[in-house]
């Protein structure tokens, strides 16, 4: 009995892979997702003659900085980078302040018109951007912010998503702490700043990641409202540069690296926070 069962399991075991079969699915998938980005970085270090060769090369023969130096001298890439950093910084800071204030107001304070205001905010989620493009452009023109950086950050100063996120978070906090602060004579603002906000760090981090991603990567609003190439953000700058230099790949890839690397590095450093943000968008948003 023991020997026969032993011989029966032996061939079965020899069929088994030395690793989980899931690797057979995950390894190719992982490569498909990451290799284009690797190629983007590698190509940015190739010389133009190396790129336009058949069959194409994957690894550059050496570190050529032609793409970067040409991009620096032939476009305003540094200016665009600075503009984008500024736009994202304003967007993130404004989001953190305004959305947490409003989220707290909707979660905890009782005031006339609260229900209606919140319904209006939730309803805005339904309105698609193609409906907003034309009037928003006209509005920006009226406000005199066409061709200024404000056109890139004004749409990201606050968002329904941000208000909703913060409200959900505050609703989940126990009320007792705030009540204790109130009994000690703290006003609403004081209670909010010194008692509630320190507890909200995870939600604020999620909100910051969301705003950073949206404002940094946004193409449509600045594309519509900014035509002065010294006011471009990175995304608009790259798109316009691509429009005129369709074949100068080392420069285009260098621009791509400059535009995406900060976010990729941020993602690698704070992966948990990014994933928490994506999860929140999906499960609660």
């Amino acid at each position, binding site marked *: 009995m023991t020997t026969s069962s032993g011989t029966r399991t032996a061939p079965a075991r020899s069929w088994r892979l030395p690793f989980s079969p899931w690797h057979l699915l995950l390894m190719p998938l992982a490569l498909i997702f*990451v290799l284009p980005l690797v190629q983007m970085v590698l190509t940015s270090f190739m010389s133009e003659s190396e790129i336009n060769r058949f069959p194409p090369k994957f690894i550059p023969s050496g570190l050529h900085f032609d793409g970067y130096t040409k991009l620096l001298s032939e476009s305003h890439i540094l200016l665009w980078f600075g503009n984008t950093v500024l736009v994202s910084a304003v967007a993130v800071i404004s989001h953190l302040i305004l959305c947490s204030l409003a989220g707290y107001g909707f979660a905890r304070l009782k005031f006339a018109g609260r229900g209606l205001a919140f319904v209006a905010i939730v309803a805005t989620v339904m309105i*698609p*951007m193609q409906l907003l493009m034309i009037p928003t452009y006209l509005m920006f023109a009226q406000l005199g912010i066409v061709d200024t950086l404000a056109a890139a950050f004004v749409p990201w100063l606050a968002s329904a998503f941000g208000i909703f996120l913060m409200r959900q978070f505050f609703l989940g906090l126990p009320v007792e702490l705030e009540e204790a602060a109130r009994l000690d004579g703290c006003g609403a603002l004081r209670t909010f700043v010194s008692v509630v906000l320190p507890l909200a760090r995870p939600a604020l981090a999620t909100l910051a990641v969301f705003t950073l991603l949206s404002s940094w990567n946004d193409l449509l609003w600045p594309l519509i409202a900014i035509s002065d190439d010294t006011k471009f953000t990175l995304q608009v700058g790259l798109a316009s540069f691509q429009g005129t230099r369709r074949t100068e790949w080392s420069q285009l890839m260098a621009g*791509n690296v400059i535009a995406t690397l900060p*976010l990729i590095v941020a993602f690698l450093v704070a992966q948990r926070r990014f994933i928490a943000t994506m999860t929140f968008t999906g499960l609660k948003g």
Partner: protein
Amino acid sequence: MTITFAATPRTPPKGTAPAARRRGRALRRTLTGWGFAAPATVLVVGLSIFPAVWAFFISRTRWNGIAPAKPLGWDNYQRIAQDPDAAAAAQHTLLLTVLFVPGSIMLGLLIAIALNQKIRLIGFYRTCIFVPYVASAAATGILAGYVFNPQFGAANEVLRRLGLPAQGFLESPGQALLVICVIALWGEVGFCAVIYLAALQDIPHELVEAATVDGASKLRVFWHITLPELRPVTVFTAIWQTITAMQLFDLIYTTTRGGPMNSTQTVVYYIYELAFQTQRLGYGAALAYLLFAVTMVLTLSVFWYSRRSGSEAF
């Protein structure tokens, strides 16, 4: 709030002082509340509901943004029905949505299940699969132009190594929309996978264990327990990805700009061209409203369907 107000007259008036104080306190509370909520509310509502209403008035005019707008009534809307470009754009948007939504849901679920295994290198796989999500659609589009370049792109090189004929990809009217769909999936599927992964990890272990103890096979557990548990997430993802597909703009702008031969001109891209290249603001706004109406009907029907069949998505 309403209860306190309704109760006030029933109690015998003991003098005006407490009532006035109460009213004063209510006013202060309202002011405090609005102090917190107003800045963000004004921005969000002012940048969406107000322009959306304005867009409706624009849609009933002929306007180039400079000369005075000429009122047209419903003419713009009637004209859409006879516009072959609008019909083609609608067809492209529909095809893109029909390919993208099920594609991202199935691929996202598959990836999530794979990433939910406790095997070696799983952290590495996770990082690789999620990282394209943070790259902007503009950068993704430019990168795609390189990878799918017919002359020296990596995609044709892979085909050549496999002994397959080279393709035109983004330069071929028959393939461009498909290639854009593939690129959009590459960039967005990580999002679906993350959501499904979180949902999979939320499924109570007891459910799966109980079924396994009762002798259910892995496939049956998946079919009868995992999938039903994931339904709310699937409904949400379907709605979200439908909106993403119907609004796809950045990627088209940095790959084909609607070409070749208008084969990738979607409704949103067409509206952009009408409004910002040919200055036909009224007609563009009318088309935008029509698309909005269609999206609304689609979203609400998915929503109602999911409500009726008993799964709460929100």
